[in-house]
């Protein structure tokens, strides 16, 4: 009995893997096409963004309340923003253009979201890694002190972004207002997300409150990995894990509701 249940699970996982792979290929083609540099835009675009912001912050000598080189500060901060902010943007409104594909019963709303999330997180990650390597190579940046801690922070940010994206994507299918609200909320959340400041530079009274913003914990973690002892970081990892866990559960519940209600076209 148990082994047959395991087989069913295994077969379902294989189908889902196949569907997500097919959706991924399809997504790359519809989004980037076969013109000029094609799917390289996936990470060239975030690289341009990050480079632009880095240059801007360097030129204006942005105040960030630490002795860190501004390039390192901008790279870790802005890459993090792209990671958690682009995933929801891509998942809101993701169902509608894919409704015709849901004629195939194995293609489900969750698969459409997962394919887009993989692509988006992949793009942000490649951009972050390539820019890091490039800046290190030309001497603007020291190599990270502890790569694993950087990865840990990065994964936490990705988890937060992915669960938020699925929740908003599912809710946005029912309520148009989600799409309208997301843009201002994302914009306002940027300065609060820890991308443009270190928690340590804030007044002590504000520090404990700012850590309630989940992204701040992730960015601090990334910076701890990058700069080691040179910075004094503050984060509450158990809080962020609990937050992401709750968000994921809520998101999956809403995705289930939506996939019961949609009508393929």
């Amino acid at each position, binding site marked *: 009995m148990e082994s047959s249940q395991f087989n069913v699970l295994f077969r379902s996982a294989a189908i889902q893997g*196949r569907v997500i792979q097919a959706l991924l*290929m*399809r997504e790359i*083609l519809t989004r980037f096409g076969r013109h000029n540099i094609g799917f390289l835009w996936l990470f060239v675009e975030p690289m341009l963004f990050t480079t632009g912001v880095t240059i801007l912050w360097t030129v204006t000598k942005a105040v960030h309340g630490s002795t860190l080189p501004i390039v390192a500060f901008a790279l870790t901060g802005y890459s993090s923003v792209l990671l958690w902010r682009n995933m929801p943007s891509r998942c809101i409104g993701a169902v509608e253009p*894919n409704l015709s594909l849901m*004629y*195939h*019963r194995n*293609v489900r709303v969750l698969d459409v979201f997962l394919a887009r999330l993989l692509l988006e997180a992949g793009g942000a990650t490649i951009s972050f890694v390539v820019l890091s390597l490039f800046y290190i190579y030309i001497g603007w940046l020291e190599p990270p002190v502890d790569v694993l801690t950087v990865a840990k922070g990065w994964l936490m940010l990705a988890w937060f972004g992915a669960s938020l994206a699925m929740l908003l994507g599912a809710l946005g299918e029912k309520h148009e207002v989600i799409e309208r609200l997301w843009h201002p909320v994302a914009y306002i959340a940027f300065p609060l997300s820890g991308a443009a400041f270190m928690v340590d530079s804030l007044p002590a009274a504000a520090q404990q409150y700012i850590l309630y913003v989940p992204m701040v914990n992730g960015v601090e973690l990334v910076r701890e990995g990058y700069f080691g002892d040179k910075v004094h970081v503050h984060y509450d990892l158990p809080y962020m894990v609990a937050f992401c866990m709750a968000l994921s559960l809520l998101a999956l519940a809403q995705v289930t509701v939506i996939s019961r209600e949609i009508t*393929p076209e």
Partner: protein
Amino acid sequence: MITVEHVNKVYPTRSGDRLVLDDISFTLARGEKLGILGRNGAGKSTLIRLVSGAERPTSGTVTQEMSVSWPLAFGGAFQGTLTGLDNVRFISRIYRQDYKRNIDFVADFTELGIYLREPVRSYSQGMRARLAFAISMIIEFDCYLIDEITAVGDARFHERCEAELFQKRNDRAMLIISHDVNYVRQHCQRFAVINDGKLIFYEDFDQAYYAHAQNMNLHN
């Protein structure tokens, strides 16, 4: 065997919930061909989507004990921004098929030539129907759900559809909905009419046709 038991489907509308399918039950055995007649908007396509598993009933159950195709319609189940070839690749990937072999078949059947490399949205209705049909024939199913697939296209296309579907695959079960009553008569052994959310079975085609014609007149 496909078993549909006490299926209801409700769609929310601006003027309140609308019961589109009302307590529908039937079975479809292997090799059996069932034709369903009904007016526009009677719920035929909804029923076929529910049977395919692409959409879920509001209540009731649909049990599939054989492999069932997606609803084969003349326009549906692929994406307009992709090329014909990309669509073949996509479907091949989902159903784990060798797409190189499939591309040969699709190229041969559709006779679309260079247009296979163009986005589907640039196709004419007839070209789209040819592609949709060819893609549907790539994968072998025990049961085909046919939603007006031959509503467009020329005589040559109809002839080739006929050969693929009713000669080569005559042993398969089929659920056919069409406005073309002769098409349904020629290809089915069982007949039902859908009206006001109810599905009613008839002994033979003539009775079903009579009921269907009455439904049309009553509402004229």
